[in-house]
């Protein structure tokens, strides 16, 4: 297990380095450079000011130097300043990360609370109306765009219940009720989307496990259905679900981009979209890289959990 953990960690580092090269390269393939594009859009700026700005941002240095400087900034958790607001990116992120973290955690909890029971019922009652209904919910979760669902939820909450969720962000410690009012709808929208894949996976693994010999033995012993399903089958069926939940983390962070924009939550997703719209490339490259780093780390943890949950897995 330890060897496996170390080997996985050793593989994750080059992947992250390569990702950073891709992100850095991407931001530099623009014809001219970020600044020229920025200036071209913002109007007349003299050559001299442009040259000075370029020097200040380190854009006049060779690419490899710029890359190494940026890498060092990322590692030392001080990724420079935004060119649009001049605020240090670390400060902006410090405000944005807790918002996205809360949204993602709530969405994950809500998503699992919807997905696992429906998936289990769908499997136990295979090919009955309950199963079909469950599968329709799952497929619609995959097909309904979250920005549409979000828009509809806001519209119909306003039309039918005369209730508009308080937009913006209040910290949980400041006012827990207001905070939850702000987060409940966006987390539900995001969680619904998330639940689709988990629901499908739960259904198929439960179906598979229900056909195993030991489950048949449990039935043959005369155990109650509830005990067979929940104590014997579900425990093993949920192991692969851990992986799919891990695979969903990307969807979760990407979904946060849209949901935060709609519900006006000042999280990382909205920060990134705004940075893109203002061509604030230091913010874009830092955020994209940070998300990649978070994902690689979380996936690593998921894989390790998986190895820990299923003792049959031996990694060479």
């Amino acid at each position: 297990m330890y060897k496996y953990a170390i080997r996985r960690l050793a593989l994750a580092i080059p992947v992250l380095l390569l990702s950073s090269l891709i992100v850095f390269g991407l931001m530099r393939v623009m014809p001219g450079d970020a600044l020229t594009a920025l200036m071209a859009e913002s109007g007349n700026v003299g050559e001299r000011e442009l040259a000075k700005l370029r020097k200040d941002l380190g854009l006049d240095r060779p690419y490899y130097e710029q890359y190494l400087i940026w890498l060092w900034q990322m590692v030392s958790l001080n990724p420079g300043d935004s060119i649009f607001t001049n605020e240090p990116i670390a400060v902006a992120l410090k405000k944005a990360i807790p918002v996205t973290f809360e949204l993602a955690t709530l969405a994950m909890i809500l998503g699992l609370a919807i997905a696992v029971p429906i998936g289990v019922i769908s499997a136990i009652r295979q090919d009955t109306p309950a199963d079909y209904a469950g599968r329709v919910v799952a497929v619609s979760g995959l097909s309904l765009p979250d920005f549409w669902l979000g828009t509809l939820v806001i519209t119909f909450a306003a039309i039918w219940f005369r209730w508009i969720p308080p937009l913006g962000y209040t910290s949980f410690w400041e006012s827990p009720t207001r905070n939850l009012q702000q987060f409940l709808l966006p987390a539900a929208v995001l969680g619904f989307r998330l639940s689709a894949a988990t629901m499908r996976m739960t259904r198929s693994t439960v179906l598979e496990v229900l056909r195993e010999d030991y489950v048949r033995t449990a039935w043959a012993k005369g155990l109650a259905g509830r005990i067979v399903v929940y104590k014997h089958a579900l425990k093993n069926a949920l192991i692969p679900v851990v992986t799919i939940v891990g695979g969903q983390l990307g969807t979760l962070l990407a979904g946060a981009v849209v949901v935060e924009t709609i519900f006006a939550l000042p999280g990382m997703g909205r920060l990134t979209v705004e940075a893109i719209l203002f061509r604030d490339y230091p913010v874009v490259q830092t955020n994209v890289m940070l998300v990649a780093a978070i994902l690689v780390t979380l996936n690593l943890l998921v894989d390790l959990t998986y190895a820990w949950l299923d003792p049959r897995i031996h990694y060479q």
Partner: protein
Amino acid sequence: MATATARAADFEVAPTVALSRTRALWAAIRRKPLGAASATLIGLLVLTAIFADVLAPYDPLAAQPEIRLAPPSRAHLFGTDDIGRDVLSRIIYGSRISLWVGLLAVGIGTIAGMIIGLACGYWEGRLDMILQRIMDAVQAIPGLMLALAIVSVLKPSTTNAMLAIAVVIIPGNSRIVRAAVLSAKQNRYVEAAEALGCRQLHILGSHILPNVTAPILIIASIWFGNAILIEATLSFLGLGTQPPTPSWGLMLSSTGRAFMEQAPWLAIFPGLAISLAVLGFNLFGDTLRDAWDPKLRRNR
């Protein structure tokens, strides 16, 4: 002689495989209600896009300010938007953008992913190691984030959104093709073709490729739905198709959200169009998988 044997093998294997797959798919579409529903949805979408000129009752760009924000009526089935453009006509024309983006993005992504996957799986070794690590690195960045970053560099437009989506598709595809190639390589006839001295490209093209087409097509159909969804999302965020071109995602963001309480139809119909299109391709992917992958059949 080698080519003659190879051709004989093609003659024996390829047509039957293709024929039985078409039959299996046709059977799945006819027998399973969800299969039939998916085929109908996709058929409708394609026909709408092709015959948009004939089907659309009005010019999708023509503004009639005097009837702005008119609710659905007999003259305007889906109502009109904030400058009096017919929503139905815009949705009909929008199907072209969605289908076009899906087609090109998935086409480019699938072909590039396939070439990388074939090369990695067939030659393995250092090439495989390097390419797969690059794929890992691309996949480490969530699809939408990567697409956003690419579009931000290239400038928001339909074409750039399409390219960005194609890049997002490549790594996953290459991995699936690679796995299929690795298993297809174990077949005796591949060994035989190698022993006969067939050229590597020939072996790849005629003996291995037919084995990987099923997973490629299944994954392509699922990606088609996703591509439509990502394009809509990018346009919704203002980073995809630009106004006044009618794109479903853009219709939702530009007017749908601004007037959603006064004119909910502006948000409902474009969203419905996206959902039905994506649903069609998702269900079609499921149908293809059920029809072609015997391992998955028993659980359905």
